[in-house]
C-alpha cells in the first residue's frame, strides 16, 4: 500500500504546530496503524529527521494510552476500537490520512501527537473511589450484588480513560468519562456510602479542569473504543442533581 500521511507536528505546548506530509510505501494491510507509524519513524530516523512522538503502550486496546485523531475521528474509522487495534486493512491504497492529537484545553499537547491527560487522574482523585483502607473489608460474598447491577457497573468500569470522548465532543466535555466512574460506583452497594459526595466532588473537579459542558450530541459514546453508553451521563446528572438537592453540604 502507498499512503500519504498528514501528521500534526508540534515541538511542545508553547510552540505552534503545523502539518507535515509524508509519503509511505510498502505498507501491508495486516499491519496495525501504530506499526505503520513505527515504519514511518524508522524511515524518518534513517533520513536523520526527528520521528513523530505518539503515545502508545499495550497495543491491545486496554491501557488507553494511544490517542490519535485519524481522518476526523478519534481512534480512526472503526467503531469500538482503539487506535492500536486499528489495522491498515481499514484503509485503501493511495489514501491520504490526516492524523492530529486530541484537542482540548484540558489536554495540553506535550509533543506532536502526545497530550497530557492528567486532568482525568485529578478527577478520579477528587472522588472516584470507595474509601476503604486495606484490611478493612468484610468477606467478599457477604454482600450479594444483583448480577444486573454488577454487569452494568462492569460495562461502565470498562472505560480505558483514553480521552476519545473529550476528543470527539465538540465541547471537549469529559462527561462520559466522569459519568462512567460515577455510575460504576453508584450501581454497586459498596459505593453507596460516598455516593453523594462523590458526584459533587467529581463534577466540581471536572469543571475546574476546563472541560466543556455536555450538549448530548452522543459523539462521545459513538467514538468510545469501549462503547460506554450515554445512559451513564443521564445517571450522573441524576446523581449530581440528587446529591446537590439532598446532601447536607450547604
Amino acid at each position, binding site marked *: 500500500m502507498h499512503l500519504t500521511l498528514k501528521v500534526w507536528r508540534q515541538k511542545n505546548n508553547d510552540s505552534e504546530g503545523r502539518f507535515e506530509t509524508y509519503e509511505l510505501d510498502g505498507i501491508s494491510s495486516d499491519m496495525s496503524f501504530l506499526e505503520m507509524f513505527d515504519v514511518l519513524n524508522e524511515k524518518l530516523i534513517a533520513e536523520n529527521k526527528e520521528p513523530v512522538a505518539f503515545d502508545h503502550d499495550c497495543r491491545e486496546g486496554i491501557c488507553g494510552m494511544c490517542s490519535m485523531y485519524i481522518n476526523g475521528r478519534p481512534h480512526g474509522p472503526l467503531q469500538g476500537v482503539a487506535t492500536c487495534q486499528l489495522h491498515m486493512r481499514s484503509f485503501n491504497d493511495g489514501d491520504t490520512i490526516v492524523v492530529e492529537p486530541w484537542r482540548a484545553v484540558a489536554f495540553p499537547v506535550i509533543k506532536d501527537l502526545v497530550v497530557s491527560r492528567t486532568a482525568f487522574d485529578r478527577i478520579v482523585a477528587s472522588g472516584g473511589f470507595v474509601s476503604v483502607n486495606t484490611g478493612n473489608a468484610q468477606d467478599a460474598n457477604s454482600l450479594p450484588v444483583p448480577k444486573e447491577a454488577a454487569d452494568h457497573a462492569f460495562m461502565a468500569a470498562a472505560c480505558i480513560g483514553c480521552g476519545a470522548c473529550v476528543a470527539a465532543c465538540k465541547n471537549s466535555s469529559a462527561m462520559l468519562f466522569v459519568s462512567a466512574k460515577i455510575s460504576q460506583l453508584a450501581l454497586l452497594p459498596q459505593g453507596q456510602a460516598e455516593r453523594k459526595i462523590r458526584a459533587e466532588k467529581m463534577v466540581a473537579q471536572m469543571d475546574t479542569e476546563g472541560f466543556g459542558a455536555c450538549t448530548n450530541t452522543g459523539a462521545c459514546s459513538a467514538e468510545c473504543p469501549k462503547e460506554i453508553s450515554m*445512559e451513564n451521563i443521564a445517571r450522573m446528572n441524576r446523581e449530581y442533581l440528587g446529591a446537590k438537592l439532598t446532601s447536607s453540604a450547604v
Partner: protein
Amino acid sequence: MSWLTQTLSSSIGKKLVMALTGLFLTSFLAVHVAGNLQLFNADEGLAFNLYTVFMTTSPIIKTISYGLYAFILIHAFQGFYLAYQNRQARGKVTYSKVDNQSTWASRNMALLGTVLLVFIVVHMAQFWYDYKFGQLPFKKYTIELAEGKIVNTETMPEGYMLKSKLEEQLSDDQKTKTIIVKDLYMIVDRAFANLPLVLLYVLSMVAVSYHLVHGFRSAFQTLGINHPKYNPLLDFLGVWVFGIIIPAAFAAMPVYFYIMHLLH
C-alpha cells in the same frame, strides 16, 4: 443558598437550566399551536380573536407569560454563554478535519437557537407588540344564537375605541348577540400576504423542528431520564410531536393565508 448558585453554575446545573427552560418553552409551543389552530376556523377569525383576548386577559396566563418571556431570555443567554464556553474548551487550535458521528442538529443548537431568537423578536414585534400597544381595528360579529351561526361581520370604523378588549351584547329579542373584539385575525391575514415573511416563518419552523428533535430528548437526558423502557416514547414525542407535527402545523398557518391570498 450558596449551594444553589453553585449547583446552577456547574456544568450540569447550566444544562439543567437549559433543560427546564427548554421544556417549558416546548410546552408553551403545544399550547400556542393548539390556540393558533383557530386560525383555520372558517369563522372570519372570531374564535381566534376570542382566544387572543383570553390569552391576554386571564391573570393566570398573564403570569405565565411573564415567566415565559423570562425563560426565553434565560434560555437564550445561557445558551449563548454555554456555546461560548464550550467553544473555549476546545482551545485555539481546532481540528483540520472532522468526521462527525453525531447529528447535525445536536451540534448546531446555538445556531438554530439564534435563528429562533431572531424569529421571536420579529414575531412579537409584529403581532404581540401591535396587539398590546398598536392601533388595532375592531370587528363586530353578529351571531344567531339558535344555530350558533355568524350572520354578519363588520369592521368598525377607524378610531373606534373600546374600554375593554371585548364587548358582548345580547340583542333585545335574545335571538342574536354581537361581539366586538380587537381583530388580530385581520392583522395576521394581512401580514401573510407578504411572501418574504411567509418564507421567514417557514424557515423558522424548520429551525424549530431541528431544535426540538434534539432538544426535547436532550432535556430529558439532562434531567437524568434515559431508560430503555421509556426512550421510545420520548423519541416519539420528540421527533414526531414536537419535531414534526407542531412545527408543521405552525408553518401551515402562514402558508395557508398566503395561498388564500393567491386564490382571491
